[in-house]
């Protein structure tokens, strides 16, 4: 049987064997939590606590700023010891709230569980917002914003993303195996909020046990479980929609333009926590893996945990790392040090050895068109990159640079080792800067 898929894409080795069989372990609490105020797409939260103040687990420590923003909560009970600039995984140092745990780990008494049957759609969206829920696939886009499309854009197809196409990462996979009920309750809530007629749970065919488990759980429901052809980047929103519905999100458009919405399985679980239990998002599953770590694990971590603690919990480094990546090897952020905290979007910590890093300098483009063949958005990466590096942003924009999802397929296949994604990102930044100057 031919599995559903999308055009383009690549087949990197999935490297999930390091951690796919490891059940989720609770990460022991560190002695210091550094909770950044900027953890999501949109305006960073604004601190609303003071130094010396006691905070309970789940208490709001930063309020949302504007609509595309979410609050952030204390990952454990303890004392606020500092509010200052701290190294951040995005590069520069950014404001963070530093909490010293008191060891009690007591939940705030303000949490309000509810019966979803008694809540309106708006109530549910507000609970998701107040809980600080963001997309858990890594992009960390505020979930309540996605759940509030304008009335003329009715979402008819809700797709739940259980694909996890990034090599090495197994966080969503273990969630699906170990907490299917929590996920499915969230799926039901999301369906109610969107009013979607069709609900599809997409899982890549390299996770047959998860597919079987979900088929079993969904047997009595109207949710469809769809097995997808194993290819990167199947888990990217637009590619998932194309595979499941056969429709393309238009250039410059959003999924809601064609009546679709995609949410990650872990986001669905976080929605359950927010609506049913009144619990904010303070923890997530993170796969610590790679050849340079002694004991790869799938850890349940609290936000604000420093990477150095995660490395320690996983037995320390097996050797000097060549590269430290937050996220997966395709779209993750390279880090310079372990002194940065995990955030709501930290799906993985990948430690690669020196020999795993490709040191080749770039060569000239030989017009082999491999990048064109693999681009899942059907762009011309080599052309956009060439314009971008010559600062010809108008031409780069004409070739649809803004539609690039930065998946890395082009850089991966380039035989000349040209840093295509870096060049395209550079071009996109120039296009946006021009737009801001003269809208």
């Amino acid at each position, binding site marked *: 049987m031919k599995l559903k898929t999308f055009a383009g894409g690549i087949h990197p080795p999935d490297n999930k064997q390091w951690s796919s069989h490891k059940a989720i372990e609770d990460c022991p609490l560190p002695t210091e939590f550094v909770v950044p105020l900027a953890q999501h797409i949109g305006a960073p939260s604004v601190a609303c606590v003071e130094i010396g103040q006691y905070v309970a687990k789940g208490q709001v420590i930063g309020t949302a700023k504007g609509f595309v923003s979410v609050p952030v909560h204390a990952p454990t009970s303890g004392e606020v010891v500092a509010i200052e600039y701290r190294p951040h995984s995005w*590069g*520069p140092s950014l404001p963070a709230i530093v909490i010293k745990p008191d060891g009690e780990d007591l939940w705030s008494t303000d949490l309000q569980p509810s019966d979803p049957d008694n809540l309106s759609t708006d109530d549910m969206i507000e609970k998701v917002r107040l809980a600080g829920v963001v997309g858990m696939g890594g992009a960390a886009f505020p979930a309540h914003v996605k759940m509030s499309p304008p009335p003329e854009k009715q979402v008819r197809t809700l797709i739940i993303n259980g694909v996890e196409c990034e090599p090495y990462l197994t966080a969503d996979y273990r969630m699906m195996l170990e907490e299917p009920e929590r996920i499915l309750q969230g799926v039901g809530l999301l369906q109610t909020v969107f009013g979607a007629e069709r609900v599809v749970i997409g899982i890549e065919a390299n996770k047959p046990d998860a597919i079987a488990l979900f088929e079993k759980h969904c047997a009595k429901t109207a949710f469809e479980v769809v097995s997808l052809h194993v290819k990167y980047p199947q888990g990217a929103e637009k590619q998932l929609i194309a595979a499941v519905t056969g429709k393309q999100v238009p250039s410059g458009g959003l999924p809601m333009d064609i009546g679709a919405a995609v949410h990650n399985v872990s986001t669905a679980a976080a929605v359950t926590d927010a609506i049913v239990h009144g619990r904010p998002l303070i923890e997530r599953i993170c796969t610590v893996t790679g050849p340079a770590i002694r004991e790869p694990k799938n850890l349940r971590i609290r936000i604000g945990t420093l990477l150095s603690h995660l490395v320690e919990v996983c037995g320390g480094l097996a050797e000097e790392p060549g590269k430290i990546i937050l996220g997966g090897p395709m779209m993750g952020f390279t880090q*310079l040090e372990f002194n940065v905290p995990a955030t709501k979007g930290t799906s993985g910590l990948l430690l690669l050895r020196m020999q795993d*890093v*490709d*040191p080749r300098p*770039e060569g000239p483009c030989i017009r082999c068109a491999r990048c064109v063949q693999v681009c899942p958005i059907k762009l011309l990466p080599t052309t956009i990159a060439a314009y971008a*590096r010559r600062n010809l942003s108008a031409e780069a924009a004409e070739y649809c640079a803004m539609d690039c999802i930065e998946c890395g397929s082009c850089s991966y296949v380039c035989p000349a080792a040209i*840093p295509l994604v*870096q*060049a395209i*990102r*550079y071009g996109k*930044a120039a296009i946006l800067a021009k737009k801001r100057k003269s809208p």
Partner: protein
Amino acid sequence: MLAAILSLGCIGMIAAVALGFAAKKFAVEVDPRELAAMEVLPGANCGACGFPGCAGYAKALVAGTIDVNQCPPGGADVVAKLARILGVEAAAASPEFAVVLCQGDNRKAQLKYNYLGLEDCTAAQRIADGPKVCPGGCLGLGSCQRACPFDAIEMTAAGLAVINREKCTGCRKCVAVCPRQVIRMAPAEATVHVLCNSHDKGAVVRKYCQVGCIACQLCKKAAPDAYKIENMLATVVYEHHSEAAVAIAKCPTRCIRDFAEGYPDGSALLPADADKPHAA
């Protein structure tokens, strides 16, 4: 065969007549001064004058909307010629050279990370604020060298940009492209410069660069009018540049250099009067 020759010949003649007629009837009147101006301009189309290429500047000159001294690469020579062509008086703008205020190459300055990516300083700067620990130092990836229309910038083997004072025309393209603003303009006669662009405290600078300015103020003590110290960084006061050289020997990190004596370490360039004997 004959028919072919004749018919093509006729078509050719008709075309020639038509073109000749068109050349006269549709001729564009160009002010002869514009053509003369374009002859004397350097022809590098560098844009320093603010116009699109030398042709653009020539047009504006003839229209009378711009001064004759706006072409730095042309120098005083071109100013004089343009003044004659346009029949105006002109004072030359004082010539300036660009200088890279940094000596921290890979041997002397610490790196944050091993950068593998686009050989472009702005691209590298976007990644964790650049591969150098020093926030103001030269990244050495050559964006300025590529931007220079006059081939005046040398990238040393150890990753430092050095501007050749013989070839620099003051067009400022390098200044515009540098993401760290480490290239500055200075009057041509000023040869002494403090080659550092970091505003960090001295103790911090010492950790990441062997030749950075630590704002110890010894230069200012030696030549009070020639130096100013602002935000933990010394700079030469160019109006008093002739007094600045005495402080060079006093600088503990050797970050002050007189380009008349030589270019930074690692550069293959020789100073203008290299063949003349000078005091040790």
